[in-house]
């Protein structure tokens, strides 16, 4: 009996190194797997006990089914769209054949947006808003970091605007955009500009702060190198300040992109701007028996995209930044 327990205790057995390495490697896979299984178990157990006015709360299987449905709807919509264009081309060809002077009218398909299209819209909006913020924030952050007086002048505004929720900005942005952005043939839809500007306003601040802190806490030896070389101001920024601040800029960009994605979903919900947020809101308003599972599917997709955006930034940071240690997970 004792010999059996001894054999079963892993601490007392000298495993060959390849085996323990394999076990170690396996542990990295197994533990998350166990976590996910537990989560799914608790979720499906509690879901079946929650009754809402729209039926039972969706469990894992309902969400999987629904993701399939959403994909099928997209494919159906695509084939409808193709059929529409085929019909239109044929009709136009017929008209032209009858009357050579006829100028064919091409109309684009106006079916309802599918789940995939909503994802696409949200991604384009978040990236545009984020890029716009980066274009403003990085130079501003560098300027603030370089000049103490500029920092004290601008810092109060940053501190006040930083904690403002996107939901507070949105009505203002909507009104300003509809007053200012007037064009007969607008390049971008107003709803897109609304969401984008709201995203920009919210993810501007972490980038400004991180960049300016990065510049202000520059290694004094590097500054001395620049002083001994008497580098002119522009070369100083270009050759010393900017590269030295790259790790800090990336830190700011990563947290800003996370904020941007959260803000966007909220903005889309509130303003009925196309995107994943609108999808969630529409489903909620729709109130069918499918709605909750469709919303739950959207929740997972939103989370997954947020995760992928963060990883994308990390990969970018690893490729572009000289400081590989700051680009850890």
């Amino acid at each position, binding site marked *: 009996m004792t010999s059996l327990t001894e054999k079963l205790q892993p601490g007392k057995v000298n495993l060959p190194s390849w085996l323990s390495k394999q076990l170690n490697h396996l542990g990295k896979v197994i533990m998350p797997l166990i976590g996910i299984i537990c989560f799914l178990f608790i979720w499906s157990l509690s879901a079946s006990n929650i009754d809402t006015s729209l039926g039972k709360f969706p469990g894992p299987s309902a969400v999987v089914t629904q993701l399939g449905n959403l994909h099928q709807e997209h494919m159906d919509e695509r084939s409808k769209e193709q059929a529409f264009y085929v019909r239109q081309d044929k009709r136009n060809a017929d008209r032209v054949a009858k009357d050579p002077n006829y100028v064919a009218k091409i109309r684009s398909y106006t079916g309802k947006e599918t789940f995939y299209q909503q994802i696409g819209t949200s991604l384009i909006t978040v990236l545009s808003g984020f890029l716009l913020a980066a274009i403003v924030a990085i130079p501003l952050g560098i300027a603030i970091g370089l000049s103490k007086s500029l920092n004290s002048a601008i810092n109060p505004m940053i501190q006040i605007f930083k904690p403002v929720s996107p939901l507070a900005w949105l009505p203002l942005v909507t009104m300003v955009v509809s007053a200012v952005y007037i064009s007969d043939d607008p390049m971008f839809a107003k709803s897109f500009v609304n969401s984008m500007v709201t995203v920009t306003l919210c993810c501007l601040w972490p980038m400004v702060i991180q960049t300016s802190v990065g510049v202000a806490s520059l*290694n004094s*030896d*590097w500054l*001395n*190198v620049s*002083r*001994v*070389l*008497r*580098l002119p101001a522009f*070369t100083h920024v270009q*050759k*010393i300040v900017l*590269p*030295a601040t*790259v790790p800090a800029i990336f830190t700011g960009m990563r947290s800003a992109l996370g904020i941007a994605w959260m803000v966007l979903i909220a903005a889309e919900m509130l303003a009925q701007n196309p995107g994943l947020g609108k999808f969630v809101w529409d489903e909620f308003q729709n109130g069918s028996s499918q709605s909750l599972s469709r919303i739950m599917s959207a929740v997972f997709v939103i989370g997954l995209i947020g995760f992928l955006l963060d990883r994308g930034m990390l990969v970018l940071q690893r490729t572009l930044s*000289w*400081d590989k240690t700051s680009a850890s997970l």
Partner: protein
Amino acid sequence: MSTFLNISKIDMVFPTPKGDFTALKEVDLKIKQGEFISLIGHSGCGKSTVLNVVAGLYQATKGGVVLNNKHVLGPGPERAVVFQNHSLLPWLTAYENVELAVKQVFSKKMNSKEMQEWIEHNLKLVHMDHAMHKRPDEISGGMKQRVGIARALAMQPEVLLMDEPFGALDALTRAHMQDSLMEIQDELKNTVIMITHDVDEAVLLSDRIVMMTNGPAATVGEILEVTLPRPRDRIQLASDPHYNELRSKVLKFLYEKQRKVEVISPQQATPTKEEKQSSSEVA
């Protein structure tokens, strides 16, 4: 030979929240062209402050520095500094680090081909030509310091300022670097001021050793002429009575006349930036 670099009655006072802190008091030193000077003294005695004043990174409260008949008012490449912790820019390769300096100093005098040759020449001088396209985090501490020296030499400075250049290196690398430095010095005959904590290093490398008294209000205590013939060989010198006599003179100054009092006085309890730097140098 006449005075090339004149450090004239420098006082250095740092304002602190607890009142002024006098780091240096009437530091006076005249250096000839081509001379190799070591500054030695205990941590916190203000060696680095002297160097920073000569470099122009600090402005002396009183007195001033005249180099080659020009009053030193700010930092400049004619007073190149080799910093203690190499201070290479980590995003640039060894070559690019030197290039930054060369472009800044010689862009009007040299074309790009000449600049490239000059950069490579300087890296060759410090035996770093084999790794010149590596970044600082890919090379060892000694190699980084070599690149730092190459960068300083490439500015063709009138005086080379070295702030404990080998302080962070292990003993073997340090000896190797000292030999390299002597070899370069034989060839280029630069005017050098080097800070060190290492008595052997001071005696081995210097023409004169400037021993500083303990701070606050540190000043030049004694100056020791090192008349050992060059080229110097560390193994032969080890049994040379003259060398050992010089060595013991420095040791006597440091450990008898200027014995570091271990009791922490109120002023030392709040070390200045200078002192913090020095204490990390010792470690």
